[in-house]
């Protein structure tokens, strides 16, 4: 039996290492000041997909949506063992909320053809919504199992999974195809494999080649630019290093459902909170100290 797993991954700002410049004066995210990383829980999703491939056979396709730079996370997927990588990038997809994103991803998964598993990280550290996975399952018409802790077994196209239910866990059996969102408890991500790193570090999507050529030859125009990009793409393709890049048209997505137009989420208000208080209060580790702390927290409505 051979199973096709798709792993949805996202490149996110490294919110764990935020600096003072993380937000612009107008309250929007200052992406230029934030280093980008592989969304941590998506690495765990990739790990589960790779383990499923090792135990039960099949292939793993990494899928991401984002600007051309998001190809970084696709290369990382290849370093760790993914068989194939696809970037969905299109200006018309910019500013998509979770609904539009899940629509676009569902079109991309459909375009991939026969799929047995879709794995997602539980949530991304930039938006923290945990909505895209479940919405994607709805759009694909797949059953969904969220908060995966352990992939137990797979037989007769039925997966046995252990999921976290907040105050404990439960084991569920589910028929394929299925969408699964993954917790970090599901398995320590494997490191990048050195030989794959040396091979796939050269892999590019077409948009990256275009940017490279433009940077190297600022004066190059239309057809000359196009020809040079095509020449490089051909050289990479011959060595299996050309990553797939899809537009909304390639996945037959309706632009009306994508980007800002397809995003019903309205931001009510953005608050830029600047912490002004410096220093700290020392609470003695005594009954009396704890009582005083709780009283203070109740008074300023942090508790209760």
């Amino acid at each position, binding site marked *: 039996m051979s199973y096709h797993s798709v792993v949805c991954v996202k490149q996110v700002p490294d919110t764990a290492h935020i600096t003072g410049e993380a937000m612009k004066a107008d309250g929007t995210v200052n992406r230029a000041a934030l280093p980008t990383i592989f969304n941590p829980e998506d690495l765990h999703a990739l790990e589960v997909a790779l383990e499923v491939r090792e135990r039960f056979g099949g292939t793993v396709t990494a899928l991401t949506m984002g600007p051309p730079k998001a190809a970084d996370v696709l290369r990382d997927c290849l370093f760790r063992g993914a068989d194939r990588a696809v970037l969905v990038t299109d200006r018309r997809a910019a500013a998509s909320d979770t609904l539009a994103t899940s629509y676009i991803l569902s079109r991309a998964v459909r375009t991939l053809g026969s799929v047995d598993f879709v794995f997602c990280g539980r949530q991304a550290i930039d938006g923290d919504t945990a909505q895209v996975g479940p919405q994607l399952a709805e759009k694909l018409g797949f059953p969904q199992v969220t908060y995966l802790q352990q992939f137990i077994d797979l037989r007769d196209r039925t997966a046995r999974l252990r999921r976290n239910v907040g105050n404990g866990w439960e084991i569920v059996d589910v028929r394929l195809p299925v969408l699964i969102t993954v917790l970090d408890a599901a398995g*320590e991500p*494997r*490191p*990048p*494999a*050195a*030989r*794959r*790193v*040396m*091979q796939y*570090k050269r892999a590019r999507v077409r948009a990256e080649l275009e940017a490279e050529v433009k940077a190297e030859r600022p004066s190059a125009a239309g057809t000359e630019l196009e020809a040079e990009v095509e020449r490089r793409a051909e050289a990479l393709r011959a*060595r*299996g290093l050309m990553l797939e890049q899809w537009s909304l048209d390639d996945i037959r997505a309706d632009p009306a459902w994508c980007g800002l137009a397809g995003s019903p989420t309205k931001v009510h208000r953005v608050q830029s909170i600047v912490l002004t208080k410096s220093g700290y209060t020392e609470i003695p580790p005594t009954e009396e100290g704890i009582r005083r702390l709780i009283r203070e927290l109740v008074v300023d409505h942090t508790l209760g």
Partner: protein
Amino acid sequence: MPNFFTDNDDIRFLFDHLDLGELARVQERDFADARAGVGYAPVDEADALDNYRRILEITGDLAGRIIAPRAERVDAEGNTLNEDGTVTLHPLVADNLRRLAQADLMGFTLPRRYEGLNCPNLVYSMAIEIVSRADASLMNIFGLQGIAETINAFADEELKQEYLPRFARGEVTGAMVLTEPDAGSDLQAVRLRAVQDPDGRWYLRGVKRFITNGCGEVLLTLARSEADIADGRGLSLYLSERGPRIRVRHLEHKLGIHGSPTCELVYDDAPARLIGQRQRGLITYVMALMNGARVGIAAQSLGIAEAAYRLAREYAHSRKQFGGPIERLPAVAEMITDMKIQVEAARALTYETSRVCDLENNNTWVLECDPPEDKDELKVRKELARTLKRLNGLLTPMSKYYASEMCIRVADTALQVLGGSGYMTDYPAERYLRDARITTIYEGTSQLQIVAAVRGVCSGAFERRVAEFEELVYTDPDLAALREKLVEGRMQVLSAIAFVKSQAGDYLDLAGRRLVDAAAAVYIGHLLLQQAAGLRVSKVGGLGFPSGRAPGDAAPGPASGLSADQRAALRARKQRVARRFITTEMPQVRVNCELIAAGDRAPLEDFELLAGPLPAKE
């Protein structure tokens, strides 16, 4: 997330300083693999440097994020001997190895046709240091890749095809099975028998002791194949797979490196296959294997010392006594700075040694497998082979001796800086010291390294190499003045050598330690000066490396990931390091040389008197 490569400025500084690009050109035989279409082979020097950096980043990430946090538990719990004579590795050790295998790091120096990374030894030494800093005991498995390297160098193609890819994939680990109860430092006394049946199949019978990772799947065993030849020429090297006829009888209880299983092995007519030719087991193959392993121990010593230094540095900064951090107390300040400088000094020597090993290995390979048709080049290469062999004969034992002694000193000082806390098991200082203690013992004791190194010191290898160093021109007056001190030091060493040569035979071994200490200080002083000035000696014995960079070729830019500002700051700091090292070490050189010239043979002549009577049996 801590990364033990990217957080180590000195390794990164040396990554740029040591011109790994030229080494890559030699190692990659002018990038032949890439031209043959191997997808993960580098196409040029810059590409190779980028690969090396990425490989070390992966190693550093595994070491800092996964391996280091587990070291305390591994040390406390150790491995398990089962009743059936097998060993179960600690689950965290097993998982560490699985991670290293997933990262493709178990075939570091093997050629790509066996699925290896084809890295130079220098990069492997850096990786060993990085892993040892996280858990010294894991190095005793990760750092045993010389076993596969030995198979690659001396076994026939069939054995290579069968075993090397399995090593590279991490499916098997190896052990070098040499020591016996009555054959420790003196391996010529090995007794384990190899017998051949009428069909030519070999079987091994006997006992081996103190075998690091003796529970590994592939054993290289030194055995007596010639019953009638009593010395080293009667020994051959065999490959066996672990099976029911090889049993682990005992796991040693040790002071340190608890994660590394040290086994007593019983061979009960275990089937084995001959490696290379009979009778060359000890004199050729094991000697080559041991030389590589010694550089590995030097690198392991660097890692342990680096960990100990960091712990002490942090502690002295945060521990407050007498109204301030103890790092402000002069005695502690000197301990901390000395530790750091000693680590850097030993690193300079060890990396230099690895680099020379790489040049020698590659030159040997060319001479044996692809000798040049050009008569002049052939001549140069043969001359190079002799020069490099002599230089390595000096550097390998010298760096093993120097780095391991440094390691114990630094680990001991770190514990002292932590005081009472260091003596408790709450901090890893005591573990570092326990782990450090083996480094001057295994793969040849310090005393044996000195015996080997002192011959290199006296045979001219030291003098010729230092003469090459002295040819470098330092425009900075401070560095030029330091160079003068090194010249003085060299002259003192040469007079001491002349004196020793005028004395009867065993005085050489009595004076050996002081002579090697003095020579090492001068040698390392030059290396640190070169680091400070950004200078390098790329020739060896006045000979350029034939497949190295052509004179007009530009070297690729720095690839360590350090910014230009960082590199400049590190270079400026290195000047102070060189000054401190040379001004404190050169008086020691003088003292050592004076003591040698005094010719005192009391430990030999008055042994009974000075050693006192044998203690009475209780």
